[in-house]
């Protein structure tokens, strides 16, 4: 076993290499903009140079003079599109700001014209020649900008249902022996997946094919159909491979329906490849947040009062928020809890989910505050977590289905060598470098959504799995193939998986870390339907349900138990008995507690995610602990992070190889969220300044060394049939706090605002 393919522990599958490995290393994996089109025209976007105001007029003569220009579409001649509601209000869209609808401008970088030409080069040149006269008014950029408006999230965002509270916070905080009040800030960040936000649209008669990197092909299909006013069955979204998502491709952006409508008007396929900088404003982003944490504790470290207030930026049009207090108020035992989330509206594009949307900013605040409290109490930060560990969340008193938080802390502490740490700040150094060790907890809700699948088995064992899931780099093809192979008892090499196509049976959005849990549960169920048919043929006299249960497990049985009791099925014999060449089954699976309309919603592109704290009698989270070493140069203040160690427990690990890679990438994301990433805003113009990959700092290879991922064995039979908690968004939570805690340990300086750059260090 190599480092990349760790030895599986109990309740882990085999670390087989990726199903899509060969196509990805040979350049044959076809992403959306790689799809061949018949005689395409090329589109190039023109985006607004002001954030607020209106367009007075376009000067298009120069642009029209460029050889090869076919059409320039502005609000004055744009195809009419229907509005789509925000996804959180039951729609599909990531923003309700619909460009090309009027002369009004709602944010900087809004799409104001689409130039279509015979070549990419001509479209780009003509777009650069479009002249626009505006009447601009002063925009409100962010917190503290004049003209912003703030209000509680509750009541304006349908998905934010409650400000969690329990007990009497004010009284308990007042009486607490030790008190901490601290404010924390997190910056604007952009997903920046490597694949640009491309869209190709081709009509065949009344039928539309869209090639676009999407984390939710059913949402996009239904959303575009709604905007175009056509039957959703006439729209097909295809993307067998997606060049990274991180949340940016989860909801529909305005570009797709516009391009589709122009392609229909011109009766020609259109390929749009927006620029990297346009990607900063034509999709969503992680909004900047502000927090105030109040912790009250007894001298022996028991939390008696906790209050978390968070504020988030959103657009004028939409009340998007992540509302991470749902997690931070439930992580530790505390009898008196209060919280409040508010939304501050500015002249910005609408933000959206970005990898671990609520937890990254909100746990930065809580896990920094926990470290500050530990210092105040002179208690080891790991021990402070142990003192406040709990089996039941404090708000509703519901039990965690499983909770390995302290086991993760202990494993990671051991691997890191935490015991060798000298607790005093500024007490460790190496030449010019001050050394700091810090840690933090991570957690992420276990979520599931209804999913369908179709499985076809042939007598020679060849298996075909069809599911409109998404390969965004998570290993979705691989874990689905492994699940089908295991469940049907066929060799892995015989399983073919088809995904990324809205003509396949619906799968949920690849977001909220629900994909493996949902799609594998559906595939297991459908494989069981096939097995039942085969068993029925081979053993007609037996009680089918009992027999099937005994041999393979039915319905809600977790995969491991099934594997243990599994017995190879003689396929040839079964097929002979059935008298058919192929057995094919389709099935629809939904998690416990899913609403009544789940399956209808699934087909119309609305994922009904359940889980986390919203389960009826229990609460389900994955947990982890992260330890980091930072080195701060005492003269230059350069900050390096040579070691990141994380231990995680996330239920069944279907493939330790793909899981480790995702957790490793997550740890690096976490480091990046603390030390590198921030979208800088020109507050005068409400404009993103560093909107390119040189100025928006992302980690490169030289920024990363010494990353260690530890996966704990965990079995949880109370979450879903696959026993999977999901780990795509687990490892990049808490890292930002761990790094600031380590910087405090190195320098004695507490940093409460991200990102931390060398100019912020005052050694």
């Amino acid at each position, binding site marked *: 076993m190599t480092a990349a393919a760790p030895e599986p522990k109990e309740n882990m599958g085999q670390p087989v290499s990726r199903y899509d490995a*060969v196509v990805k*290393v040979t350049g*044959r994996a076809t992403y959306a903009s790689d799809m061949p089109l018949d005689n395409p025209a090329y589109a190039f976007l023109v985006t607004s140079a002001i954030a607020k105001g209106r367009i007075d007029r376009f000067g298009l003569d120069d642009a029209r003079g460029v*050889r090869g220009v076919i059409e320039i579409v502005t609000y004055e001649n744009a195809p009419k599109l229907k509005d789509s509601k925000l996804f959180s209000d039951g729609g599909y869209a990531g923003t309700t700001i619909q460009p090309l609808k009027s002369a009004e401008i709602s944010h900087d970088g809004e799409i104001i014209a689409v130039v279509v030409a015979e070549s990419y080069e001509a479209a780009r040149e003509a777009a650069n020649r479009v002249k626009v006269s505006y009447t601009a008014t002063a925009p409100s950029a962010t917190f503290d900008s004049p003209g912003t408006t703030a209000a509680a999230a509750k009541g304006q965002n349908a998905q934010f249902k409650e400000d969690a509270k329990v007990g009497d916070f004010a009284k308990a905080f007042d009486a607490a022996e030790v008190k901490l009040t601290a404010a924390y800030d997190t910056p604007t960040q952009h997903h*920046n997946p*490597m*694949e640009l936000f491309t869209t190709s649209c081709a009509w065949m008669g009344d039928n539309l094919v869209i090639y676009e990197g999407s984390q939710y092909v059913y949402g996009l299909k239904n959303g575009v159909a709604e905007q175009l006013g056509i039957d959703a069955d006439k729209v097909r979204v295809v993307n067998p491979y997606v060049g990274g998502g991180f949340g940016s491709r989860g909801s529909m952006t305005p570009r797709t329906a516009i391009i589709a409508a122009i392609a229909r008007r011109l009766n020609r396929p259109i390929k749009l490849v927006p620029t990297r900088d346009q990607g900063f404003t034509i999709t969503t982003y992680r909004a900047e947040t502000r927090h105030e944490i109040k912790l009250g504790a007894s001298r022996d470290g028991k939390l008696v009062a906790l209050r978390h207030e968070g504020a988030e930026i959103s657009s004028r049009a939409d009340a998007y928020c992540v509302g991470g207090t749902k997690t931070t108020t439930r992580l530790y035992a505390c009898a008196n809890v209060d919280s409040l989330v508010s939304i501050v509206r500015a002249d910005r594009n609408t933000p959206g989910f970005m990898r671990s949307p609520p937890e990254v900013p909100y746990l930065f605040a809580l896990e920094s505050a926990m470290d500050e409290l530990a210092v105040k109490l002179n208690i080891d930060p790991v021990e402070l977590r142990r003192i406040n560990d709990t089996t039941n969340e404090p708000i509703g008193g519901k039990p965690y289905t499983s909770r390995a938080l302290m086991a993760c802390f202990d494993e990671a502490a051991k691997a890191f060598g935490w015991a060798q740490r000298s607790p005093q700040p500024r007490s460790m150094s190496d030449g010019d470098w001050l050394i700091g060790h810090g840690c933090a907890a991570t957690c992420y809700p276990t979520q599931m959504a209804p999913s369908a699948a179709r499985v076809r088995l042939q007598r020679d064992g060849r298996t075909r799995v069809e599911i409109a899931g998404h390969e965004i780099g998570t290993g979705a093809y691989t874990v689905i193939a492994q699940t089908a192979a295991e469940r049907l008892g066929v060799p892995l090499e015989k399983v073919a998986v088809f995904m990324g196509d809205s003509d396949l049976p619906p799968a949920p959005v690849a977001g909220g870390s629900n994909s493996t849990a949902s799609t594998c549960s559906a595939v297991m169920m459908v494989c069981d339907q096939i097995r039942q048919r085969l068993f029925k043929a081979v053993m007609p006299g037996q009680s089918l349900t009992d027999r099937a249960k005994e041999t393979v497990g039915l319905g809600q049985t977790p995969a491991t138990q099934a594997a243990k009791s599994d017995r190879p099925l003689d396929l040839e014999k079964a097929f002979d008995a059935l008298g058919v060449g192929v057995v094919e089954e389709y099935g629809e699976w939904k998690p416990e507690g899913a609403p009544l309309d789940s399956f209808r919603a699934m087909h119309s592109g609305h994922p009904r995610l359940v889980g986390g704290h919203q389960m009826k009698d229990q609460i389900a989270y994955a947990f982890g602990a992260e330890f980091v070493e930072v080195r701060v140069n005492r003269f230059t203040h350069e900050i390096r992070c040579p070691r990141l160690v994380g231990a995680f427990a996330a239920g069944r690990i279907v493939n330790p190889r793909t899981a480790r890679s995702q957790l490793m*990438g997550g740890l690096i994301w976490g480091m990046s969220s603390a030390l590198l990433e921030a979208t800088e805003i020109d507050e005068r113009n409400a404009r993103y300044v560093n909107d390119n990959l040189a100025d928006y700092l992302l980690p490169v290879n030289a920024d990363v060394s010494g990353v260690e991922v530890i996966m704990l064995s965990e079995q949880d039979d109370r979450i879903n049939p696959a026993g999977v908690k999901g780990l795509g968004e687990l490892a990049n939570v808490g890292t930002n706090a761990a790094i600031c805690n380590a910087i405090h340990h190195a320098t004695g300086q507490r940093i409460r605002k991200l990102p931390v750059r060398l100019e912020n260090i005052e050694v």
Partner: protein
Amino acid sequence: MSNTSGSKQSAFDRRAFMAGAAGSALVPLTARAAAAEARAAAPQDPALPVDVTLHVNGKEKRLSIDARTTVLDALRDHLKLTGSKKGCDHGQCGACTVLIGDRRVVSCLTLALAAEGQEITTIEGLATDDHLHPMQQAFIDNDAFQCGYCTPGQIMSAIACVKEGHAGSEADIREYMSGNICRCAAYPNIVAAVKQAAPEIMKG
């Protein structure tokens, strides 16, 4: 296509352009000059197609394209070689990396006309007869990718990194592979892959 326009007033005179671009020196000036001599001056309007012959993965490809077409767009949009990826179009991410001769080059910042007469190797040109290139196999063995979008560029860059003699230590590999961004952050696995493949590639 049309080779008739030879206006001295052209804002985009081909000879002047070639001479001016020589400073970026991706290829020997002589080869470039020879290619330029082989053709009469380009048309005045850059949108009018010009003829260009590219040598890609050992094959000669004749194209008639907009003079502003980059190697990347020529590969992707005109030769249907979509393995090389567009991640920024600014030379900032490395997803479009190809080899021109033995050099790694960001193909988004290289005009197709400037690559004429040079041997271009793309990700599609590495595997032969079902045998993966050692670097491709190493990327699989070490799970050196997730979404896979940066992977063609990483692999091309990694091969050059080894041949340049910059794969002697992990620190060297990290430094010399830092022109290729991987947003999934598979970096430690990429380093392991380069380490694994290096001896075999150096052996030739």
